[in-house]
């Protein structure tokens, strides 16, 4: 049970994340530790595929908490995010009351709008007490929803309470651990950010990316891992529309493992480029000759490092 409590220092936060194979850098561990200790939501921004969502998942597993995920989308409204009444059951209850000759209007209304008929959606679920401790609430890709929903979130994130007009205010006895992620397709309002601790998740450096790869895809050899990481790092220096993220590196490594590749060669790279690059323009830019040039660069770099 000792490992289920919140970490006591920045170092133990790093260890906690590493236990679930999440290799974080110290800046992320610092901000995460502060968020946990101060009971503040953590707002993480960054390119797609750098492990923003993973932070919440790892927190939930290592701390043994429930993970509640709210995926944002355009048109997300209260009935999908907070609560909804079970109309079918309410109708039946009204009919039954009528059949039983219950004529008291106040009474029916009170019965029908009780917790029994309430369908709880992620935000309301996150405010409920849980036996294993306050849950981890992941509000994913908040930039996909609109400003109106952001404004609604202000109340939830500041006081950890939600108002259901028919029932009253629901307040969390212990605030949940909140992680908000954004891909930055739109600027999120400052008022929301002000309530959170902010962190920008960037691409990892070669050393850390290698550690991530070794931890996540152990089935490929050390030599191939080094080549994969060096190649991806070189790609990120190219002028691409979308640079490959860590998720793409891991996908690519798994793909290479499936193909039983021992070392990178131009033909394999060209054939599997679709795993790394997701835009046609980027793929055409990296033709066979370019791949060969990059690969030679990577190999001589690795040889020099030995």
């Amino acid at each position, binding site marked *: 049970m000792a490992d289920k409590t919140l970490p006591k*220092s*920045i170092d133990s936060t790093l260890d906690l994340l590493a236990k679930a194979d999440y290799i974080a850098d*110290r*800046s992320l561990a*610092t*901000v995460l*530790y*502060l*968020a946990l*200790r*101060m009971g*503040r939501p953590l*707002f993480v*921004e960054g390119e797609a595929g750098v492990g923003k969502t993973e932070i919440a998942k790892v927190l939930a597993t290592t701390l043994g908490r429930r993970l509640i995920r709210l995926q944002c989308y*355009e*048109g997300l*409204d209260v*009935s999908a995010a907070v609560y*909804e*009444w079970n*109309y079918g059951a*309410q*109708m039946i209850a*009204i009919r039954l*009351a*009528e059949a039983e000759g219950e*004529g008291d*209007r106040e009474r*029916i*209304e009170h019965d*029908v709008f009780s917790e029994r008929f309430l369908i709880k959606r992620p935000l309301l679920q996150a405010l409920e007490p849980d036996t294993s401790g306050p849950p981890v609430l992941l509000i994913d890709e908040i930039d996909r929803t*609109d*400003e*109106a929903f952001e404004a609604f979130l202000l109340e939830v994130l500041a006081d950890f309470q939600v108002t259901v007009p028919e029932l009253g205010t629901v307040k969390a006895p212990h605030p949940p651990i909140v992680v908000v992620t954004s891909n*930055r*397709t*739109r*600027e999120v309002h*400052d008022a929301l*950010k*002000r309530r959170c*601790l*902010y*962190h*920008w998740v960037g691409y990892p450096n070669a050393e850390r990316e290698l550690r991530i790869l070794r931890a996540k895809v152990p089935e490929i050899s050390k030599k191939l891992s080094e080549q994969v990481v060096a190649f991806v790092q070189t790609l990120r220096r190219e002028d691409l*529309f979308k640079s490959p993220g860590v998720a793409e590196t891991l996908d690519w490594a798994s793909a290479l493992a499936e193909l039983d590749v021992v070392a990178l060669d131009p033909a394999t790279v060209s054939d599997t480029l679709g795993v790394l690059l997701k835009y046609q*323009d980027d793929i055409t830019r990296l033709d066979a000759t370019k791949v060969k040039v990059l690969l030679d660069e990577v190999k001589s770099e690795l040889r020099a490092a030995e």
Partner: protein
Amino acid sequence: MAASQGRLAENILYFARALRAAGIPVGPGAVLDALEALSVAHVGARDDFYWTLHAVFVKRHEHTALFDQAFKIFFRKRGYIEKMIASMLPESAPGSAKAPPPGAQRIQEALFSGLDQREQRKSNVEIDARLTVSDREVLQKKDFAQMSAAEIAAAKEAIARLALPLDEVRTRRLVANRHGHLIDIRRTLRASMKAGGAVIDLKYLGPRVKEPPLVALLDISGSMSEYTRLFLHFLHAITNARKRVTTLLFGTRLTNVSRAIRQRDPDEALAACSANVADWSGGTRIASSLHVFNKQWARRVLTQGAVVLLITDGLERDADDTLAFEMDRLHRSCRRLIWLNPLLRFSGFEARAKGVQTMLPYVDELRPVHNLESMAELVRALSGAPAKGYDPKLMLRRVA
């Protein structure tokens, strides 16, 4: 202990003030947060101290560089942080209160240049901008480039009075709507409860409509210089009238001035814009500016059915495949791309310039915008469906 707390608080306060001056919006709440964070973090190393303050003060990725600079300058004294950490009993930062650290030149510049400009403006002689009715008619048709100072002042007023576009797109969010097509069970049930459940009075929902984001890309190169100021006034008026307007200026490089232009007073907004821009009235590099826009901004500002206003004369010196490529990408990432070209004022304008020819196939509409009349027409066009007469293909056919 209270005294040492006070010193720490004082230092953080000065640091917050320095950050604010450097352009990072830091509220008083953030100072309290920083103190709380430092007290729970048990900071052990310089890095941890840095990241703890970073976590609290920085709320935007762009501000990281500013924060980094400010941190280095502010805590520059060797061993200062270590001392602070070791004893939590620091001296006041060297001269932080009275004389700002030398690296804060940017702060000083920002503060004093603003003052100077305001002073200068006050000393300017007020121009009598009142004109008679017939004058106003002439003004409507007069080319911006040929206007006198007084006429320009009048044109500015006219721009401020323009009825601004009200285009709407349907969003996927639903709101109560009497003529909607979906039944709102929630309101229906609540309404029927009022009658004790006997009457079921159906309530409806319909999609909510909303103005789409507007993105203006304004060419500020030398060949456009007669027009840029008035366009900026126009954009200022639009920015203040509706939400989600992004303005980017480009000459040889791209500058986002959306925040600067949002100020209420048009003159202050324009002054703030020019303070941000380094390449005023220089050359144009449309292709490379569009490339930067496509790469850094398009994915952030062109969401939810954005309309793009590209304001340029299209006189690109090196028009090649990259220009076509970037135009194509821009066209594909927005809902409607409108090219506003002041050169269209000449009735004999033909798409002969190479840049114009390259760009034309990729725009949805090509419109003139050189006088108040055409500006008002643009506003009408933005409110409604694309007009037929401005189809860019007509222009290409005319050349062929």
